[in-house]
């Protein structure tokens, strides 16, 4: 195996899982998330010689995966709801899934990156390839909708 493939595979082992989990939350569909993540890592493989020189190749593959995922979610079916676990927790889980599914692709992406990955607004904007203001708008609208659907009080505007 050539040296750059070895380096690529080390990177793959380190990053693939977390990219897949994020994309799955954005898409709400396991198979579609696997496809999008696979495609993103394939593109990374093709451009590895160049991208591996970047300061953060992880951000590059995340950005590509998110781009593929948001486009896929704009054009594809709404995913099936996974079977509930049990009790109050499962009910809350299904409520959250339903609420997230009603968001636009951009709103859902912003919510996942901000709340799940705990990324600051600036980094979310970089990953979504839009402005900080656009991210704040997506988050504001998403939170407003989620607060209504989940019956929660709306807190302050996120940082």
């Amino acid at each position, binding site marked *: *195996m050539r040296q750059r493939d070895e380096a690529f595979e080390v990177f793959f082992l380190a990053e693939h899982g977390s990219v*897949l989990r994020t994309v799955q939350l954005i898409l709400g569909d396991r198979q579609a998330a696997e496809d999008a993540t696979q495609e993103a890592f*394939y593109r990374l*493989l093709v451009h590895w010689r160049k991208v591996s020189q970047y300061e953060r190749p992880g951000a590059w593959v995340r950005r590509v995966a998110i781009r593929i995922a948001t486009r896929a979610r704009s054009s594809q079916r709404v995913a099936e709801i996974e079977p509930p676990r049990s009790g109050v927790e499962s009910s809350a889980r299904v409520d959250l899934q339903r609420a997230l599914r009603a968001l636009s692709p951009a709103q859902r992406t912003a919510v996942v990156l901000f709340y*799940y990955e705990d990324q600051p607004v600036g980094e979310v904007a970089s990953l979504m390839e839009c402005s900080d203001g656009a991210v704040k708008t997506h988050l504001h609208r998403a939170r407003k909708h989620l607060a209504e659907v989940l019956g*929660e009080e709306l807190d302050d505007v996120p940082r």
Partner: protein
Amino acid sequence: MSLDDRLRSGLRTLETAPEDAQQRLAEFRRRAYPRRARRWVAQGVAGMIVAAALAFGISSLAFHQAQGSGGFVNKQPKPKGVPNCTPSDLHFMFDYSTGPAGLVSFGYASSTRPCWIDQSITVAITGNGFADLKAGRLFAVSGNNSAIRLRGVVPTPNADARAIQGLGISWEWSNWCGSATRAYFVFFETGKHLQIADDMLEMDPAPNTPRCVDRSKPSVLTSAPSVASFPSTRRNDLPLVLQPAPGLANPRVVKILGVYLIDARTLWAFFTEAPCTALDHVTVSESPQQVTVFVYVGRQSKSSCHPTNLPNIAAKIVLSRALGNRGVADGASGEVLGVASSR
């Protein structure tokens, strides 16, 4: 609990358990590395054609922005039990047949399983491929930049056939009276915002442009019938792995263009069948340092003769032991060849 806290903790409950990363990597190797190797083969061929075109000089371009038009392969519902195609299932297929008009065909074959596709595809004709498309420089052709919906089951190809089964769509390009003699077809998903060349589906050169019939009338690109098979070796990136047919007349060694390592002991050697020749047999000379491959073609009978060069033909070679660190040499030229690996 605040909304923010509920979202932070709630999203954690939706994530799935981590999977075996090594298993994921093994699956990725199986799909992505062969796909990249095919890309190299396709790029190599395209690069040669670009170089040849540049050697003959660059023609001026016309500029045009056209509206899309629709078309359907079929309107049948998706059959039960057929999975959706994923990018790693699909091979691009391309063909351009010339006559009074050019028939541009684009489609897919599936390397893994019959699968379902429903995709709207746009073709743009430019003089300099993706760069011109991105800059909005399209040939002045009525219907250029038009879309057709590709919908149906993508079959798995029969690699031993002279034609590869696939699912495709086509456009007819006629009456080109422009000065440019070099053209590229760029295929991309309709509505997709192309930012990098990798966003497009495929780009292929036209060997020539359609005949100029009437200068007073525009050049036209219109949707044409769907396509169910592609000539096996025309400008697609799916190699045709041929079974040798020993006993042809005047067998001779031909130059190998590249080698693809399928598994530890199996190679594909790529070559071009000249007009009226076909793969006769393959021999291998193995030493501890090197493997030398001799690909022989023989003359076909007139009744089964193909009149044009057939590129992207592959001969399968099974070694007596794993290739390991040994080099691979072309028996015709003695040159050591680059080996693209699937692993």
